[in-house]
Structure formats: structure tokens, C-alpha cells
């Protein structure tokens, strides 16, 4: 009997009772080898979501357009926000938030929802939450396009703050991935994690300066003698601020009779780019650490996913 092709590098796998140690570089290589599953799963997720709809992928653009229309009308005519070009302000936060919340929300059920796959096929389990993030990223790209187009159309313009965008985006992705890995692994053992995540995200949304301007909060904190840094412990606040600084800019001040912004005070807490870059740097570093920890947690648990489903 001829032996298996020996010219090919033989892949030797050893499985023991010891939970394997996460070796980041090696695992990244394994993930890279399986990247086709990832792209195929992302494609599937998008396809399935839009396949049966007549408008298809246009839906992901309609979402921010709807935000623009509704919030634009409500906060420009009914409730004066006091924020100039409010739709741009709102959307620059919303795109970041939507990426985070849909990715984390979808990732939570990604392992449990693919129980069939997990219990029958061996592949790096990280692929599943990563696919949720991938699908959210595609939507994010469309929404960002809508936002940028709108910004240019209404003449709000894009400033030098745009250089912050890649950094803010990178930090957002790292933080989102860290959280997605954590909750998806957690949900395998405790199935009500998904409900907690839902509730948590709702609260988190309102604790993050998306609808209301951080500048006002900073002012309120200063008035009562608290450090604004406390508010910024919420990493999403820093990230969203980065997006707002990048896409909305720091020059705007509150207009007369505004609901959210006090007249004449800045919408964003600080005009300088360095301030945001520093905040993003700190959050980015912390997110990388969190990513490592939650990845290790996920990796350790993932060997048992097939049994727990």
C-alpha cells in the first residue's frame, strides 16, 4: 500500500487532556489558514440577510438614512438639540456604535447558533464570532459611505480630524473583538448571557455620548468638581468621541435654545487632536490587553464547546 504523500509537509496534531496554551502567533497562523471559512461565513451571513429582500444590500444603507431623516426632523424641528448639523453629529457616533452593538449582539449567539457545525466539524472556533464582526464591518463600510456622502452634500465638510479615523476605527475593532470573544464563549455555558447582553447594550448606548454631546457632560462634570475622566472610563465614550472628532469636527458650539448643548459651549470636550489621539491610545492599549485575556478565555473554553452544546 502506498503511503500518504510524504513530499507534502505532514501536519502533526497532538491532542491531550491539557487545555492548549494560547500562542498568539501560531493561532493567528491557524486562523489565517482557515480564512476562507471566515469569508464564506461572512458572505453567507450577508447573503442570507439580504437574499430574500428586493432591495438587498441597499437596506444596510437605508438604516443610516432613516436615522438621518428621523433624528434630523425630530431634533431639528420638534426638539431643538442645539447641535449644529445634528444629523452628522449623531451619525458619526451611530456608525461606530452600530458596528460595536451588532457585532457583539450577533457574536453572542454565534457559537450556540452554529451548534451543528461546532459539534461536528473541527475548525478554529474563533471563526464564528469573527464572522459576526465581519458582517458588521461590511455594514459599517456602507454606513460610513452614506455618512461621508451626506456630510459633503450638506456642506458640513470634512476637516483635518479625519486623520483620527483610522486609529478610532482600529481601537473600535479591537475592543469589539475582545468583547465578542468573551460573550460568545460565555453564552455557551450560560445561555441567558444573550439577554444580559441585549439589556447591557441598551444601557451602554445611553451611557455613551452619541445622542447628546460630550462637551456638555464635560462641563457638568467640571461644574460639580468631578473629573471628566470618570465619564471616559467607558471605552466606547472615548471611541465614539474619536469618531465624532474625526467626522464631525470640534469647531461646533451649542446654538441658542438647544436641548442638549448649552449655548456657546463646545459640542466636543476638547478642540485639539492630540487629546483624542491620547485617549484612543490609552483605550487601544487597554483593549489589546482585554483582547488577549478574552481570547485566552475563549481559546481555553473552545475545546469544550462541542460538548456543552
Amino acid at each position, binding site marked *: 500500500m502506498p503511503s*500518504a504523500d510524504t513530499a507534502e509537509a505532514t501536519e502533526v496534531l497532538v491532542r491531550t487532556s491539557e487545555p492548549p496554551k494560547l500562542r498568539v502567533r501560531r493561532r493567528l497562523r491557524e486562523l489565517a489558514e482557515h480564512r476562507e471559512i471566515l469569508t464564506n461565513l461572512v458572505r453567507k451571513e450577508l447573503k442570507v440577510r439580504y437574499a430574500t429582500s428586493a432591495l438587498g444590500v441597499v437596506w444596510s444603507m437605508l438604516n443610516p438614512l432613516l436615522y438621518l431623516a428621523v433624528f434630523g426632523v425630530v431634533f431639528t424641528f420638534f426638539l431643538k438639540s442645539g447641535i449644529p448639523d445634528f444629523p452628522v453629529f449623531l451619525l458619526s457616533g451611530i456608525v461606530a456604535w452600530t458596528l460595536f452593538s451588532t457585532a457583539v449582539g450577533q457574536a453572542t449567539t454565534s457559537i450556540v447558533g452554529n451548534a451543528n457545525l461546532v459539534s461536528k466539524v473541527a475548525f478554529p472556533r474563533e471563526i464564528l464570532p469573527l464572522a459576526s464582526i465581519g458582517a458588521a464591518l461590511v455594514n459599517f463600510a456602507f454606513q460610513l459611505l452614506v455618512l461621508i456622502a451626506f456630510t459633503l452634500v450638506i456642506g458640513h465638510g470634512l476637516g483635518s480630524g479625519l486623520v483620527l479615523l483610522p486609529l478610532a476605527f482600529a481601537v473600535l475593532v479591537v475592543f469589539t473583538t475582545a468583547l465578542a470573544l468573551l460573550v460568545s464563549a460565555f453564552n455557551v455555558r450560560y445561555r441567558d448571557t444573550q439577554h444580559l447582553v441585549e439589556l447591557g447594550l441598551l444601557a451602554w448606548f445611553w451611557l455613551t455620548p452619541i445622542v447628546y454631546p460630550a462637551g456638555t457632560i464635560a462641563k457638568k462634570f467640571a461644574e460639580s468638581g468631578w473629573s471628566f475622566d470618570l465619564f471616559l472610563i467607558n471605552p466606547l465614550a472615548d471611541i465614539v468621541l474619536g469618531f465624532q472628532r474625526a467626522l464631525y469636527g470640534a469647531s461646533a458650539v451649542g446654538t441658542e435654545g438647544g436641548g442638549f448643548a448649552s449655548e456657546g459651549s463646545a459640542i466636543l470636550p476638547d478642540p485639539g487632536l492630540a487629546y483624542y489621539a491620547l485617549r484612543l491610545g490609552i483605550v487601544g492599549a487597554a483593549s489589546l490587553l482585554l483582547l488577549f485575556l478574552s481570547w485566552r478565555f475563549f481559546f481555553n473554553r473552545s475545546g469544550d464547546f462541542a460538548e456543552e452544546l
Partner: protein
Amino acid sequence: MAPPVAIAIEGVGKRFNLYAERASSLKERVVRLRRSKAREFWALKDVAYDIQPGRTVGLVGANGSGKTTLLKVIGGIIRPTEGTVTTRGRIAALLELGAGFHPELTGRENVYLNASILGLTRKETDRHFDAIVAFAELEDFIDQQVKYYSSGMFVRLGFAVAVHVDPQILLVDEVLAVGDEGFQRKCIERVKEFQAEGRTIVFVTHAVDLVRRICNEAIMLDHGEVRASGDVDSVISELRTVLLQQHAYYAGEEGTRDLEIVSAEIYDEQGRTGAAFHPGDTIVVQVDLRANTPVENPVISIGLTDANDQFVFGTNTDWRQQRWPVFEGKQRVRFVLKGIPFVEGRYSVTLGAHSRDVSTVYHSLENRFFFDVSRGEENTGAVFIPVEVQVEPL
């Protein structure tokens, strides 16, 4: 020097914790602070076996004997609790056909998705695509959504992708048993090609004849332990024995006992009991009966079942023109089975005494008695045919 083994299984054990009620939610976890005690269950115990490259190994055993668990451990889907499994070479585990198939996607899209999950690259899938579609015989439907496929089409497509993965080690779980006969033959052909290409195959199956046909060796698991391994024939005969013993354990007994089977014996023409029979031998099944009250028109019946629980033969006194208008006292009935047509295996005997219309069962003993047939050197196959070989010079 011997080539390195393809799969080395060393002292593998797998423990599952069965929780009567395990906190499956955070809420419960908080409310019920004490952990509920888990019952331990060893699905695999100290399993050791080396599989050389290029061998085809059948993994057999009763339901729940740990076959699939072992396959999953080899495939890296679950982790062993003890011991080590070392595999050399790219591995593909086919535990399910069409893993990841989504009904909303077209056949084409599902092929690419499924292939990537099974470890094929896009390029490889491109190369095999036409062959996959042709194998599945779905040329006209490949761009239709899978939700419009019949279950047969679905399975064929899943299998077509599966047989085009290009592993050095292939793990297969029962999936060969799909599709119509023509398709099955095609699948087995494909497995034979794999063998010819020197790939290592491990497959779980209940089909004993399939193991005979395509395996070089076999492993039999019994309650998670290796009960027999190596030579296919000896493993299968051990499997048959165990399956029958398990049946015997569950052997049923029922009836009104108006007419009771007091005892029964199985012996050969010379009156010897307990010996193994040979194909073509005569077997006597002797049944002693006692009527506890006079019974009108009873029928005594006999049935034979093979190790796969397949009913293979039955007859009764009525059909054989032996009747009792009234059955009183004790009687002895002998079924003389002339020339048993079995080649090999353990057969169990079910005896019954019932009314002629079978509305009343007086007494039945299910799978209570056994006999073994050993094929000897001169026979093989499923049924025995008396043979005479004639030779003459020409």
C-alpha cells in the same frame, strides 16, 4: 524502519459529566449557589490503538459504545480527558453531510461554504467544482437555492463535497448509508479510490458487511473500551457475540402460562449440546411443555434472529401439521432444522406457545437460547449453499 503511524491513540479516556440539573443560565447559577453534583460517565476508557498510514479501519460496536466519541476525539472536535491522540497528515472528519449548508444559499454557494469548512481552499474547490456537481448529479440545479432541493439532492451534494476533500486521514461517521443503491455504490467506489491512493480511513458503521468489504482492520468498542481489534473477521464475530448477549440480557418472557415452556435444549444430530455448528449441519431444538390447564388448539413456534437483530427464520407446529385439539399434561416438541443455511455468527432462538389465532400468548421466551455457527475454512458469505466441487481432466 516502519513508517510513522498515521493515528496513534494512547490510553485515551473521555469523561462526560452528566448533570441532573445543571445551572444553564447565570440566573440559576446565582440562585442555586451550590453546584449540583455531576454524575460521571466514561464514554471512552483506556483506548489504545495504532493505525498505520493507508489502512482502512472500521469502528464498530453497539449503540452508545463510544464509537462517535472516539471519532470526535481523533478529529479534534472534543478533547480527551486522559491520554493522547497523535495524527499525522491533513485530517478531515465527515460527521455530517453538508455541514453549514444554508437553505437560502444556492447549491454553488453551499459547495464553496461547505468545502471551506471541510478544509478545502477556494482554488481547490474551483478545481473540483465540476467533478463535485457531476458526482452529485445536480448539473441542472446547482444555481438553485438549496431550500428547493429534495432531501436526496441535499445529501448527494453534501456527500459529493465530502468525497472531494483531499485529506491524508479521513474520518467518516455512518454517512455512507445514504442515498439510493446506485449512489451508495458510487460512494463505496470513491472510498476504494481513497484506499488506492494510500489514504488512511477510519469509519464508524453498523453495517458489518461493509466492514468486511472495505476494511483492512477493525476496532470494536464496548462501553467505551476496546473489546476486540485487529483482524476484521475476529472483531466481527466478537461483535456478534456481544450484541447477542446484550439482547439476551433484555430477553423478554411473557404469557398467561396456561401452557408453559418448561425447558428447551439445542443439540446436534449426535445429541451434543454447546458445540459450535458448521454450515449445513442439522440442529435440533427440543422444547418441553406443560399444560397447567387443558388448552385447545395451541401452536408452538420457533424463530431465529441473527446478531444484527434481523429475523432470519420462523416456523410453527401448525404450519407443520402438528396439532393438538386439546393439549394436556406434558409434551415434548422437537424442531429438527435440517441443514442450516448460515455461514457464521451467533443466532438466538425465540420460542413461543400461543393460541392458533395468536390472540393469546401462553408463554414466550424471547432470544433466550443461542447457537453459534462457525464457517470453517471452506465457506464465506452470508448464506450457506451445499457445494460439491467437481473436477475432471479434459
